[in-house]
């Protein structure tokens, strides 16, 4: 279990006064303090960790956010920003003495500008909400994390979220123009704007992926793109992870960058097939889903070349979708992967390391050995083009040993990712989940340099505390014994 800092006694003792202070700033039903109504906010997508906060405040304007932050700053109250609460790394996990600052009521699309290909939206607009709003005009917002139906753009910016299509379209950082933010002191400011590459320090780049450590984001100016004429997928299944990995190398070497290039191992294929009946080959050890874009003729040309490449690696199954429906069928199993694993196991941890793609066969072999030694099943889904690996570790949360082993197994996988030249997290963020593994990837000085930048924004460590950086050696926190 990951330790959280001791609540500040002075803050806990003043709870009623703090709730009243917040109610004065966000009137109506904007402050939640009853235990039963705090329950939905006690956890996020990392549901093994639960902690009710001191209170929840739900502002509707940037000015209210500024007032809340100025109040919390003046009173030494910790603040945990929250969007939809879909973080898989515990990025929105409350602390007992913290106010959860929920942005979900700031859910308006303020402007769409097709000539300049941008949209200005509030932080609580969902990822898919942006695309749905502009789809009728042929446009979309490119990053597509699997939680896109629920997750909010403010959270996407804070985690620099990716998705299955970022091989072609980039991650959140590559699709932003500007932010409106509030400092912990309650100062409102903007970075970037409606144009590319503001001169001066790249605040937009630093703030993207900063996990709520630096400031609270209230508005986002995103780039929107015109949709391609069409897209279609193919499926290729192979007799070993090594051979599938060689096929991936050959595809990249051919000069074709597919819009998506997904890899599933044998346990993932079986779990998804049992759940979705997508027609996946159950005798395969590894399977690729490859998607291309363009006109029908262009899709035919690219899929034809990809088929030729895959045929060099003696596939045991090769299906090229001929229609949009067949394409959806190929994706159906992959898109239901989390549900599929949830069906065969009471609980699972979704890990998120990145590795150099050439290391995939070795890493999958080692994960298989670890799986046997821990006695826990694992299914691996992999964004093969960019090396982002998602092992789903199956366990039973009602069994403390099973949970402990699953966490340790996950830590072993992420340590392995770093050892082979990769990193702890490709798109889910460090949060609390990977906080104590940070020394595996960074030297003590590297952590201190990042902490110093954090403290330049938030000297009292009030913003989303106890996440990202290990607590040890940080005078801002006293940890529970």
């Amino acid at each position, binding site marked *: 279990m990951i330790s959280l800092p001791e609540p500040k006694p002075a803050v806990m003792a003043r709870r009623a006064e703090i709730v009243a202070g917040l109610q004065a700033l966000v009137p109506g039903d904007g402050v939640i303090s009853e235990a039963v109504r705090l329950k939905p906010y006690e956890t996020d997508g990392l549901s093994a960790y639960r902690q009710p906060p001191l209170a929840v405040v739900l502002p509707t304007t940037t000015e209210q956010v500024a007032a809340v932050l100025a109040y919390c700053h003046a009173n030494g109250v910790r603040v945990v920003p929250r969007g939809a609460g879909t973080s898989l790394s515990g990025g929105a996990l409350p602390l007992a003495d913290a106010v959860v600052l929920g942005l979900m009521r700031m859910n308006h699309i303020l402007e769409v500008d*097709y*000539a*300049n*290909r941008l949209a200005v939206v509030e932080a609580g607009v969902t990822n898919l909400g942006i695309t749905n709003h502009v789809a009728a005009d042929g446009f979309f917002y490119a990053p597509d994390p699997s939680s896109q139906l629920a997750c909010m753009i403010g959270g996407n910016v804070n985690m*620099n979220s*990716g998705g299955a299509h*970022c091989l072609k379209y*980039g991650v959140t*950082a590559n699709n932003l123009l500007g932010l409106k933010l509030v400092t912990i002191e309650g100062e409102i*400011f903007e*970075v970037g*704007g*409606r*144009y*590319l*590459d*503001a*001169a*001066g*320090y*790249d*605040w937009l*780049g*630093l703030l993207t*992926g*900063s996990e709520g*450590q630096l400031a609270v984001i209230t508005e986002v100016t995103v780039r929107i793109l*015109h*949709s*391609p*004429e069409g897209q279609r997928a193919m499926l290729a299944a192979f007799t070993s992870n090594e051979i599938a990995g060689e096929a991936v190398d050959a595809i*990249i070497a051919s*000069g074709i960058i597919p819009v998506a290039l997904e890899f599933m191992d044998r346990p993932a294929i079986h779990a998804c097939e049992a759940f979705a009946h997508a027609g996946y080959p159950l005798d395969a050890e590894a399977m690729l889903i490859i998607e291309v874009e363009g006109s029908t003729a262009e899709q035919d040309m690219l899929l034809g070349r990809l088929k030729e490449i895959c045929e060099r690696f003696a596939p045991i199954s090769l299906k090229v979708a001929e229609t949009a429906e067949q394409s959806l069928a190929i994706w159906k199993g992959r898109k239901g992967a989390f549900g599929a694993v949830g069906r065969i196991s009471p609980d699972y941890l979704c890990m998120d390391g*990145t*590795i*150099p*793609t050439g290391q995939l066969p070795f890493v999958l072999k080692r994960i298989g050995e670890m799986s046997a030694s821990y006695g826990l099943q694992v299914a691996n889904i992999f*964004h093969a*083009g*960019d*090396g*982002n690996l998602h092992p789903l570790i199956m366990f039973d949360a009602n069994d403390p040993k099973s949970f402990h082993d699953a966490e340790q197994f996950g830590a072993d996988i992420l340590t392995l990712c770093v050892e082979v*030249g*990769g*990193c*702890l*997290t490709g798109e*889910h963020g460090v949060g609390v989940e990977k906080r104590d593994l940070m020394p595996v*990837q*960074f030297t003590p*000085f*590297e952590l201190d*340099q*990042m902490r*110093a*930048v954090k*403290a*330049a*924004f938030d000297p009292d460590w009030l913003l989303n505390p106890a996440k*990202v950086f290990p607590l040890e050696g940080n005078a801002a926190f006293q940890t529970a014994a």
Partner: protein
Amino acid sequence: MSETLLPADEPAVAAAIAAAAAAGEPLAIEGRGTKRALLRPVQAARTLSLRKLSGITLYRPQELILSAWAGTPLPEIEAALAERGQQVVAEPPDLTALFGATEAATIGGLVATNLSGPRRITAGAMRDHVMGIRAMNGLGEVFRSGGRVLKNVTGLDLCKLLAGSHGTLGVITEVTLKVLPAAPATGTVAVRVADLTAAVRVLSAGLGSPYGVSGAAVLPGEHPLAVLRLEEFPESIAYRAGRLRDALAGMGEVSVIEDAESRALWRRVRDAEPLEAAPEEAIWRVSVQPTAGPGVVAALGFGKSLLDWGGGLVWLAGPATAETHAAVMAAAAAAGGSFTLFRGPEALRAAVAVLPEEPAALAAIGRRVKAVMDPRGVLNPGRMRAAG
């Protein structure tokens, strides 16, 4: 510039910076010094050059990753990539002619200045493809950020903080880039129009189409030429150019520029050649929302401009005076955008704000970040702003 330090490896760079910090003696940080005339003159008696820290340290074409020491000349990297059919994604400009430099820019300098070419509009900026760095702070303490993989959100992204900080927050010693296959073919659809506003309408139509336009610029002239680039497999170039031609036919006289000529044209746009700046003229880069580009040009009444990035990047050349600079600042502000005094005589660059002022809250954070990255203030003092 009296003395230039030429450390040959990373520990020597660190030692030189640590010594400068201990003595409180500022350093001008540069690669090969090709962009000394960019932004403000540095207030330092000595220069630290990274030119001897040169060479590609890792290249994995199948993993789309290349690492090189910061002082590696860009042409050396481009040549290695070209052998495997790959390229530097952001298409950084070659500004040797513009700055009167005698040698090629280094990869470290291009990252530190975050300079991107026409492809920026669809493929991202130089900083977007920096997957990792080795660097040191103003005390000579070495740190890494990012790594050598394509997707990484572990910890604060200090790569982004250093990219575009012009050597004022840290000294980059090694860069790891995401690279991509170069398209086998290119072509350009060109539309002759009456004025810049009509030209940007053409660019917006092209960039708002499903055809994957990878460059969108306006060549200046009495009747400006709006140009839209495609980079694809040859079959797709023919198809997409045809579709664009049909879609834009009502907006002006349309022509298609074939592969070799198209490549030459975009090299010229990348390097700002169509601007035709005279040696004595100052050059500005203004970034605004694309539809505001023509208004910036009109407000200034210059004869010399070049629009790239769909109209949002406005290159301007004009008299190197404080009055002209004030007019550019005002036009950028009125359009809600950003500006850089990109080239000018030293006296002008020392006298004016070469970048926009930041809001007070952000400027205060900037001073604190500078203080934690470079506590003794020895890295490129005065480069970006008069104070720091």
